[in-house]
């Protein structure tokens, strides 16, 4: 059986890192599996990795440990899935990017800018009636920022979904057995 840390019971948010072969159709299969189990995912991001042949999917979800374990086992059955780990929050760097368009005019712009400074985030677009803010950070920080900005009126919002790596010098892809996904 594949080794993965058993999810801590009661801890709601889980982050899975899934290494998959970098080829068309993979995401559909992975996403389809979540859909079939009526498993509500919080965020999902997919992108290339340090290896051409491998993509990395980061999934965050609020679930009980038991259904999560079942989903991990089912994901493992997909042939394109090379490796799955559930990341331990204590040993993980997790980041997300958001772009937030806030309603801000002459009267309250400086208040918003104060918040921007406080959170050490950036303004990437200014308009007489709006400010667009780019922020990266762990989910909690972004939630707090959004909570404050909400008072001014959020016009538009987009979040990237979390990405995460474990701390230390190792790469998850080192664990892909055989390492022969290249050459096709």
């Amino acid at each position, binding site marked *: 059986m594949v080794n993965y840390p058993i999810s801590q019971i009661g801890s709601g948010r889980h982050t899975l890192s899934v290494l998959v072969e970098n080829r068309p159709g993979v995401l559909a299969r992975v996403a389809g599996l979540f859909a079939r189990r009526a498993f509500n995912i919080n965020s999902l991001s997919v992108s290339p990795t340090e290896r051409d042949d491998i993509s990395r999917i980061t999934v965050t979800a609020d679930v009980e440990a038991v259904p999560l374990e079942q989903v991990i086992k089912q994901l493992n*059955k997909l042939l394109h899935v090379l490796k799955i780990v559930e990341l331990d929050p204590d040993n993980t760097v997790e980041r997300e990017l958001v772009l937030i368009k806030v309603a801000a005019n002459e009267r309250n712009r400086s208040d918003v800018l104060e918040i921007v400074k406080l959170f050490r985030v950036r303004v990437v677009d200014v308009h007489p009636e709006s400010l667009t803010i780019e922020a990266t950070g762990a989910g909690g920080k972004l939630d707090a920022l959004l909570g404050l900005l909400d008072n001014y009126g959020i016009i538009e919002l987009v979040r990237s979904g979390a990405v995460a790596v474990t701390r230390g010098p190792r790469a998850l892809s080192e664990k892909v057995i055989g390492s022969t996904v290249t050459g096709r």
Partner: protein
Amino acid sequence: MALPTPLQAFSGVPNTPDDSANHSAKTSVSSSSSIGETMTGAQALVRSLVDLGVEDVFGIPGGYILPAYDAINDDTGFRFILSRHEQAAGHAAEGYAVTTGRVGVCLVTSGPGATNMVTPIADAMMDSVPLVVITGQVNVSSIGTDAFQEADIVGITYPVAKHSFLVTNAEDVPRVLTEAFYIAKSGRPGPVVVDLTKTAQTGEMRYSWPQRMILPGYSPTTKAHGHVLTDAAKLFTTSYRPVLYVGGGAVRSNASREVKQLSELTGAPIVTTLQSRGIVPNADHAVLGMLGMHGTVAATAAVQRCDLLVAIGARFDDRVTGNVAEFAPAARVIHIDIDPAEIGKNRHVDVPIVGDVSQVLDDLIPEIERLQSVHGRPELDSWWKTIDNWRESYPLRYDEPTDGSLAPQWVVEQLSAKASPDTIWVSGVGQHQMWASQIIDFKKTQTWVSSGGLGTMGYGLPAAIGAEIGSQRDFASKKPVWLIDGDGSFQMTSEELAVAFFEHTPLKIAILNNSVYGMVRQWQTLFYDKHYSKTNLEDGLAGEHDESVADIPDFVTLAKAYGCLGIRAFTKEQALEAIDLANATNDRTVIIDFRVWKDAMVWPMVPAGHSNDDVMYKPGVMPLHHTPEQHDTALESNADAADSTTTEKKG
């Protein structure tokens, strides 16, 4: 050994087939294309099948698989069985796979040919049957354009196949087929789809064999690791009411000998699922029969009261467990399965063992022997006394018909009694399937073919044809095939009688013709106030044939239309005569239209969603209840089927 061919398998449509996106692939192209014989992808397909040892292929041709069919000639190294419906080709391949242990192979066209395969693919997935289904696909340049007869079969089959490949390049054909067969057969067996674009079929390539597979994400575990074997063996030494709960996985793993050995060593009784009937002969005292919704009282009760449940290649299906929260409440569980995702899926497991069943049992048995030599074997006498008491008090029984027709259960008893011990039994889906499973005296493993997980009506006839092809191939036709079918199920694929005729597969077919969708009607009787909504088929009346009333269809005439021998049996004498004639006829298919009682019921029964403790032996009798009157009176009052006369069957 040839180097891997370039990245094309599973992949979508390359935007520019010759672009340099795959630098690394280039090298292997040049090295592999310098060796081997030049041919088209279609020719490579046929060659690969032969090189894979395939001897029988089922299917129907069509536009986008024509190049492949064009590559099949009289001297091609496999037999081609031409079906009349793709669904039937799939079920035939399943029947073939189940009885021979080989991979069943289908070759069909794109679009409607491919979508017709979805049911057998899903069926094979549920019952872990190894299949390779090759479907035609439109040209690469037309994919995604709603081209004529285009269907995204890879997309359609994601959730119901073990894996699906799209092949866009001829180079990849032999490697992908190698991978497909390996995936279908290894680990937990299952259906694999290979969608072959016309481009891949017509393209030129250089053929070499064998091929190296590239499956970095696939490595099934076959051998148990670590302390689990000892943990499991220990549980045996401290359990006084053990039960072996044996499923289809044990049949796929060919573990008949090991299961019997384990039972003898530990003294544990064997209960089976629908799929594993016959894995150990019924005559063995340890075999209690099938458990669950229509299982025997002894089997269901033993599991409810056991203190150690050993699940062997079984998956705790809801037809087995009833309300899973109340299933085997006092049992510690050892679960042996090759699929890690099955372990702990429905029921908490104390000792999880991932591995191939026969391999695991081979390793577990010496471990138990070792512990037994130290601790001795637990005394199971009182457990067996309880079990034998259930067996004697609640043998299979049925009510006699009140309308002068045949009792379907009696028919199955006679079929079983008169059949050769090597008979392969096949069924459709419905009451007749349950009676066949309950009543047939199974003597050998891999002689029972029935759609379990998906419960697919129409499975029977094509699966029987596949089993007969397998019998011809592997057993020199020495295993006769009896199909026990329902009039409803039979009509879903009866066109395959043409195949039975042309392919010279002489089947013996017993239609238990109750003129209704019996199983649905039984539920209507019990749970829908006898509102028999749309379950009347009007294809036969009990009693002597009345020329003025047309039976649609008239199965005897239908048999004749397909060159088969058709017989109708109203009475016991006619029935016995017909069975003898069928057993003596080996040059063509025989269909017997047994007119049976439409009010016959399958007992025992655990109503869907109930606890197995609610197993009802017959209306009003619940052996595991101490105070039956408190339970489910609605069910009892509705289930007042005639019980004036009753036939009891011992054993």
